[in-house]
């Protein structure tokens, strides 16, 4: 269910690394826990994000949840389509529901993230 080629955080973000850039979104478990997403608050292009620090927030009808940066770097693109279609986070979690693209400042940080098997184990524990 969680794509094998992605990396994951304990805070339920996914990250797709491509060269020295990466794309970040939230996981299927996160979107399911949040329920209907109505607003995604994201940083501007050019902003710096820092590993383990909040970079934005997801508002669902039910609750609000901080987004934590899996890595450090500079935001090079923001998914503006989420402004008008925030529900894409629920429906296309690992695709069009992406949130930001980041130029990595320390590619080595990626190594400390979970692979899909490790993340699945975490989710299984949370659901049991």
């Amino acid at each position: 269910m969680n794509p094998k080629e992605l990396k994951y955080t304990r805070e339920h973000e996914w990250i797709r690394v491509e060269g020295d850039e990466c794309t970040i979104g939230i996981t299927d478990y996160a979107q399911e826990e949040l329920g209907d997403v109505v607003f995604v608050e994201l940083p501007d292009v050019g902003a710096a994000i820092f590993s383990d620090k909040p970079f934005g927030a997801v508002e669902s009808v039910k609750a609000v949840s901080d987004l934590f940066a899996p890595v450090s770097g500079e935001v090079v693109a923001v998914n503006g389509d989420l402004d008008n279609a925030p529900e894409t986070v629920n429906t296309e979690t690992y695709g069009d529901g992406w949130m930001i693209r980041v130029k990595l400042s320390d590619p080595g940080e990626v190594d400390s993230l979970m692979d899909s098997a490790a993340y699945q184990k975490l989710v299984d524990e949370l659901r049991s």
Partner: protein
Amino acid sequence: MVGFAGWDMPVQYAGLIAEHEAVRSTAGVFDVSHMGEIVVSGSDATEFLYYVLTNDVARLRKGRSQYTLICNEAGGVVDDAMLYRLGETEYLLVVNAANVETASEWLAGVVGDFEVELENRSDDYCLLAVQGPETEARLDPGCDLDLTGLRRTRIREVEVFGRGVLIGRTGYTGEDGFEIFCSPEDGPAIWDELLGLDIMPAGLGARNTLRLEAGMALHGNELGVDITPIEAGLAGVVAMEKGDFVGREALAAVAESGPSRRLRGLRTSGRGIPRDHYPVKTEHGDGVVTSGTFSPTLQGGIGMAFVPPACEIGDSVSVEIRGREWEATLVEMPFYSNVSRWRAKSS
């Protein structure tokens, strides 16, 4: 599922917005069996409830219900409740799940010389709230009573789907609807029958957004032992003129001097969504959000907040959302209601 007052409760089934919209447009059903049921009976039942509750029980005729409050001597709200008069000297008091024990103990402590019996019957009742503009049409064929004749706030002993239940035309959504009190044995079968009528199961999440749009208070947020009903805008269910009752003196004093804060509705601009405990700034001083959400009906942020009493409807205020000030406006509550529709129908 989430833990809630010792119960496992579904936050949502199909999805919060879908469930919310079903209740606003057609019909939804909530399993609210966690609610507490206290039966009050005995020759002094009316006098006792007259004394221990804030609303005027003497005006409540058999087969009707009223929203009411249990206050302490300081005028704080121990719990809010629906009171159904089942007989001359028999009442059903429906209290919040989290407060069943507290409310029971509080009531027992006030009994004194009243000839009254209190029974916590919470384990004997399932409570299914069927809510939405089409509930009457969908439920009526399965009920041995003509539901079109059952007016708002009324309660009757009837059979639905061949099973004996109590049915009240009440709810917590701002929509027309019914609440079915049945035995735990009959609960699952009635639930299945309701789902078979294309009534959508709805969870705690939608229950909260619906009650918020309807401007209804939630104990623990807008009400509590440190909050008086006058502050919460519920002076209308405190019958000051009825004579002595628990909390009267304190509430009269608050009414006389004016409350130090006042519950108001607010709408945020743009994409700000107020949540409980968010700080509010007004030109008359600070306030705090007690409940807030994204309103699926209004497609924007709504909330309730305690603000200084000098604040008026229409005032511009700000809500601090994650360190940023968001513009908001104080507005009348309810934010949304289908009240006029069912009032017209039932009058």
